């Protein structure tokens, strides 16, 4: 039997797609504790808002790509029913937090292949309500729902939840590179400061480094402030051609580059915990967009946990491998820093909606939608990231502000 090559040459991204498609509408639901709505209801609201934002109507949409809780079978069918839509192209994605960027990528691929023209993408989940409906479930609010837990080689050794899985990576990074709790804390503090400027954010109280260190321990090296929030919420985006975008309501935000990489051999394999799939996913996205990390004006990075931001800063090439801690601690991530990062507060402080809010924030920054205190000055380029399956699958999106 032929021996499979360990790693084939990376394929070349198609540069002809650079800037050919655009995000023309974004929308979200209320965030936080929204007991009156189901997962599907939240997403329905976000999708309606995204369509209103784009100035498009139901008759314009012929593609639907979405994701929700894993216990909703063929999620896109349920959404289509609520939206009253048949679609030429539609599917549900199963790449965890990598799915939301992947839905935008897939939309571009489907439109380019002539499968459809206007695609509605989104994610929604009643994460807070489903864990608090009954006070008896309040004791345990796992970020990993039971249907995602493995049947063996996990719980019998006392392993539970996504916090511990990601904390393993932080533990190894600390051992290899001397990364400290101060470094992780700098990330939590910077994003909380951004959340205080965002009225929709769940977190309303300031967070100092001192308060960070006194946070309730969960799984060392993570305390409660290293962990993203439990959020009822949804977000949606509308994708169509850049040509069509010119006639629409909003300043178009061009999809300039994208890439994916999947460390399918798992979190424990090789150095996947400290050298994540963000690296190769990002290389592809930068190659398609024809720019370099130093050209990025704002980064919206998938922050399920503080450490995952730190390693992505390295993996995307914003700093050298091992220097993510000092880079974060330097203040680079704040709104007026060298790399304004997670300017809405991120999943750590705005709300965890599996990465879709990061796409929305990237778009709004490039539209220059905000007042000066929340706006990254003259933002032209944004990087957005998503990862899922405990950071096995990774997707990257590079967005550019389109012409007036």
């Amino acid at each position, binding site marked *: 039997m032929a021996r499979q090559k360990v790693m084939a040459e990376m394929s070349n991204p198609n540069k002809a797609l650079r800037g050919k498609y655009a995000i023309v509408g974004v929308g979200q639901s209320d965030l936080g504790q929204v007991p009156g709505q189901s997962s599907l209801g939240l997403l329905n609201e976000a999708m309606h808002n995204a369509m209103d934002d784009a100035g498009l109507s139901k008759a314009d949409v012929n593609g639907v790509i979405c994701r929700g809780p894993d216990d909703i079978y063929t999620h896109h069918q349920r959404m289509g029913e609520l939206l009253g839509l048949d679609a030429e192209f539609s599917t549900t994605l199963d790449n965890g937090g990598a799915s939301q960027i992947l839905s935008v990528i897939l939309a571009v691929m489907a439109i380019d292949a002539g499968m459809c023209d206007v695609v509605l993408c989104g994610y929604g989940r009643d994460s807070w309500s489903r864990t608090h409906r009954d006070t008896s479930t309040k004791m345990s609010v796992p970020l990993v729902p039971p249907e995602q837990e493995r049947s063996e080689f996990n719980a019998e050794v006392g392993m539970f939840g996504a916090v511990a899985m990601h904390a393993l990576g932080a533990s190894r990074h600390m051992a290899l590179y001397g990364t400290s709790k101060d470094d992780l804390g700098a990330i939590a503090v910077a994003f909380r400061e951004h959340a205080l400027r965002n009225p929709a954010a769940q977190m309303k109280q300031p967070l100092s480094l001192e308060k960070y260190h006194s946070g309730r321990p969960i799984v*060392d090296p993570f305390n409660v402030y290293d962990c993203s929030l439990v959020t009822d919420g949804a977000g949606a985006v509308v994708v169509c051609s850049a040509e069509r975008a010119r006639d629409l309501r909003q300043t178009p935000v061009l999809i300039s580059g994208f890439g994916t990489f999947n460390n399918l051999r798992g979190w424990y394999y090789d150095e996947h915990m400290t050298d994540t799939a963000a690296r190769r996913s990002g290389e592809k996205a930068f190659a398609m967009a024809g720019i370099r990390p130093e050209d990025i004006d704002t980064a919206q990075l998938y922050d399920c946990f503080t450490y995952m931001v730190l390693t992505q800063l390295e993996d995307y090439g914003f700093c050298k491998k091992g220097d993510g801690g000092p880079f974060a601690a330097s203040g680079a991530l704040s709104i007026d820093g060298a790399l304004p990062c997670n300017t809405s507060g991120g999943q750590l402080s705005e709300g965890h909606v599996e990465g879709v809010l990061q796409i929305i924030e990237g778009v709004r920054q490039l539209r220059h939608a905000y007042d000066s205190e929340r706006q990254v000055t003259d933002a032209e380029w944004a990087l957005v990231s998503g990862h899922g399956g405990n950071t096995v699958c990774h997707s990257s999106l590079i967005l550019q502000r389109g012409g007036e």
Partner: protein
Amino acid sequence: MNAVHQPTPRPSPETVPFWEACQEGRLILPKCDDCGSFWFPPSSFCPECWSPSWSWVAADGLASLHAFVVFRRQYHPAFEPPYAVGVVHLKEGPRILSRIVAVDLAKLQVGMPLKLTWDQADEWKIPAFQPF
């Protein structure tokens, strides 16, 4: 009050021999007859060369600590915090998730040498590792 039961494995058809050996106090791994690779979790083809020819081979129980965490919050009534779980790098090559027992939690270190021991959960013997 009812007895608290530790979660026990729900083996798949491919992992039944692994768990049966555990009950006899043996840690066994699939080893490829063609390329010599060990792998985990057990499966029907070598993940390196895709050979269907392989054998169960006893691991010698030596390992090093690839990464670890210490649980401070209680997730399950049978697991009283604090306790340590690590990714254990077996001498044969594969990495497995394991309890790290018989250790002062403050002395845990990435890279530290470990040896096989056993944890008992109801009628199940579960592999665990301890420093030595």
